[in-house]
């Protein structure tokens, strides 16, 4: 093998047929370091905790609590209104029936209008 290797060396020698652009190696180090610095800056920005990033979970929790409170308050308010409306309606029904009910009572007691007026004047 040594002869073959020596044969190759005599044929190929140390000639390098590949070339590079002029000044390539002069600017290579600066280019590499520039890329490395850019990577480091990117890493530093990613790792830096902003105030917003730190508070974000708290803000989410606060927002959820507000929405829940608003929901409960709205439900209670609507509930109260519905119950008040129901009461009012039952009052109106009672008032609506009061005149006819009163007349029925008067007929049942065989009272005429003169007797009713006299009774009312006696109370005064």
């Amino acid at each position, binding site marked *: *093998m040594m002869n*073959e*290797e020596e*044969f*190759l060396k005599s*044929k*190929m020698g140390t*000639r*390098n*047929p*590949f*070339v*590079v*652009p002029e000044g*390539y*190696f002069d600017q*290579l*180090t600066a*280019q*590499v*370091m520039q*890329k*490395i610095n850019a*990577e480091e800056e990117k890493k530093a920005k990613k790792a830096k905790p902003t105030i917003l990033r730190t508070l974000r979970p708290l803000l989410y929790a606060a927002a959820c609590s507000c929405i829940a409170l608003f929901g409960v308050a709205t439900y209670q308010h609507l509930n109260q209104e519905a119950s008040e409306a129901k009461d009012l309606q039952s009052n109106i029904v009672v008032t609506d029936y009061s005149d006819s009910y009163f007349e029925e009572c008067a007929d049942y007691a065989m009272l005429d209008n003169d007797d009713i007026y006299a009774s009312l004047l006696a109370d005064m």
Partner: protein
Amino acid sequence: MQIDDEQLKRLIKSESTRSRGFEMMVRQYSEQLYWQVRRIVITHEDSNDVLQNAFLKAWASLDSFHGDSKIFTWISRIAINEALDFVRKQKNHALQSTDDEDMGLANQLMADNYFDGDETEAQLVEAIEQLPDVQKTVFKLRYYDEMKYSDISKILGTSEGGLKASYHIAVKKITEFFKQHD
């Protein structure tokens, strides 16, 4: 100005001087590393990309360098692996390509602005490229870079005995090439 290995290792080890030390390492070894990469990757543009990526990887993995080997051995391993990965991906992409044009490497080199050789030299590069992967790589690293078999073994994960055998076969084949072209 050449800086000795121990001094470079001290600079790189310390957080405060790491960047300066790395820059010195790049300045000191980038040309030698470039030619190792270029012989594997062939074109200048690809070699430039591969080499710069290798330096970025080296920077990112500085913490894993414990100084148990020479700095050049360590960075060379990263650069060569980066070059071999690039060629593997390129080969896979070529297999998937539907491009019917087959220019031949020698013809491509003759048309390349960054190839200064004659036709025989272009054909020699093509002959080396046609060797099987391990023969091709060990030939380039041993013949051109005079790399130790032990270092090549660590890069390729092949036994030193296997590498010696591969190198012997590669030398025979390249010798045949010259005998045919004489």
